[in-house]
């Protein structure tokens, strides 16, 4: 614990989704990088207003799926062909056809594991605490208020300027949050 807590960022409160979206589009155009928007419900078009690129989670599920399929095929090949061969009805000991359904199921299972774990990893979750949770009014983000948070770590962050910018964008209240 330090005696003088460092500043985490600025929390700007908005009353309407429209004002939030316009403000987000402005921050995007200004080139801010470490910032986020919090709304009580999904606001359509916010992704674009924030300039978010499509999520990387898809790659994790794809890799998970490929791993699952390969695991399934290799497992069945090893068990049925090498480890414990049981000849049935003159059929080949290993055939991709009979091995496909279980491999396909493993594809889906590992694919969903990949998606879940990839999402947690990219979101840096789980974590026990977040500076924003200390903010008194932030709980309203799950009720009827809209918040934009600009972090101090952003290269474009300037103490006074950013505050005036957020206020000029229609924020009703801009408050600092400590780390």
């Amino acid at each position, binding site marked *: 614990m330090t005696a003088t807590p460092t500043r985490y960022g600025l929390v700007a409160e908005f009353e*309407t*989704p*429209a*004002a939030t*979206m*316009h403000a987000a589009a402005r921050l995007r155009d200004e080139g801010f990088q470490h910032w986020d928007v919090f709304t009580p419900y999904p606001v*359509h*078009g916010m992704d*674009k207003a924030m300039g978010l690129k*499509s999520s990387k989670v*898809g790659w994790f599920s*794809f890799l998970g799926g490929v791993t699952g399929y390969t695991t399934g095929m290799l497992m069945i090949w090893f068990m049925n062909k090498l480890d414990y061969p049981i000849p049935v*009805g003159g*059929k080949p000991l290993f055939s991709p*056809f*009979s091995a*496909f*359904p279980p491999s396909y199921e493993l594809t889906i299972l590992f694919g969903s594991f990949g998606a879940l774990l990839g999402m947690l990893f990219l979101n840096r979750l789980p974590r026990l605490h977040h500076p924003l949770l200390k903010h008194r009014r932030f709980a309203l983000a799950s009720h*009827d208020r809209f918040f934009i948070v600009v972090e101090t770590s952003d290269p474009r962050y300037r103490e006074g300027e950013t505050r005036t910018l957020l206020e000029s964008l229609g924020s009703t209240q801009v408050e600092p949050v400590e780390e």
Partner: protein
Amino acid sequence: MSASAPTPAAGPLDLARWRNLPLGLMAVGGLGCLVTLLVNSRQFGFSWLLGFMFYLSLALGALFLVLMHHLFDASWSVAIRRLCEHLAALCFPWLALLFVPIALLAPRIYPWMRETGTTDHFLSAKAPLFTRPMFYVVAVFCFWIWGLFTHRLRRWSLQQDADGAARCTQMMRRYSGGGVVLYPIVLTLAAIMWVKALQHQWFSTMYGVYYFAESVWVTVATVYFIALLLKSAGKLDALLQETQFYMLGSLLLAFTVFYAYIHFAQYFIIWNANLPEETYWYVLRERGSWWYVGMIIIFGHFFLPFLALLRIDVKLKFACMLPLCLWAWLMHYFDMAFNIMPVLHPNNFSFTGMWADLSCLALMGGVLLRAFVRDCGRYPLYPLKDPRLGECLGVYHAPAVASTPASAAPPLGTAGAKPKTAS
């Protein structure tokens, strides 16, 4: 509504540049068909059947898209609904007319029609269906149902263009409700009587679904292609937005997987059971170069489009999607050939037969394209007064202030001011 102010897209589409294409196709195809008919009428019958089933899948797939649009009360597909209605309406009278050569040549195409007596157990077991009169009764029934539903759905849709009445939407929904029950029954009947019956001893409960899956797949690709053409011609620009292409791309991906799932399931069950009366259908299709046609279907019909369409941005990249839509037609041809042609050419895929196939495809394609283009020119290109048109355009109208106590919550009135999504 925005429809009250006519936009350029609302007028008939100027297709002057394309006007000669159908005639050219008909001339070239007609010549090829005539030569084939004179040289080898059996080959002609099979090629004609292939071409007919190819285009029937387009009409039936389009009918499915229309039915789904109404049943799900969708908004995004308002933009493509009129195109689908025109495609579906090709069922009658055009496809019915194109069925006539099959009806005439049926005894030369279908081996079961040449069987005499009731010694064949496979025939007597399917007795009421697999008799000559029933073959024609089934054909009339199929075209009657398709004609009824495609034309009623289109008539109410055109009626709404005129009066904008909610009753039209209700009637279309009612027809869709009944249609979705009859659709799979009639489609399965057609797939069994016209394709599966080439080897009447064979049975597969998935055959109807199989034909359905490939039909919708190729139709979605075709609709994407037509939408792309219209977009690049500057027509329907306001309606054919990113959403429409993304949704069509997603449907194409979904049906790529669905088709592969159905075809694999059919193969897997037959492979696993290993009964001679079922396996012989696939044994025939693994002989000679048919094996490679099967491989083309696995890798070209499934893997290539599947891997290509996995990425979200490819579905919107026209440079990728245009070749993919054309590829879908090629793959659908191979798929139809895989189902029909091994009966005629049991040893190898016949390249000389392919010219006959192409002639039939060209002739029928010319006839149907002409009818489709004529319909597109005759009627507005989209449902002018569809209640979901605004949503499809991405325009949001704030709902009227409800009569609930206003003090309950500060009105989110400005929520209505959601900006138009930048295209």
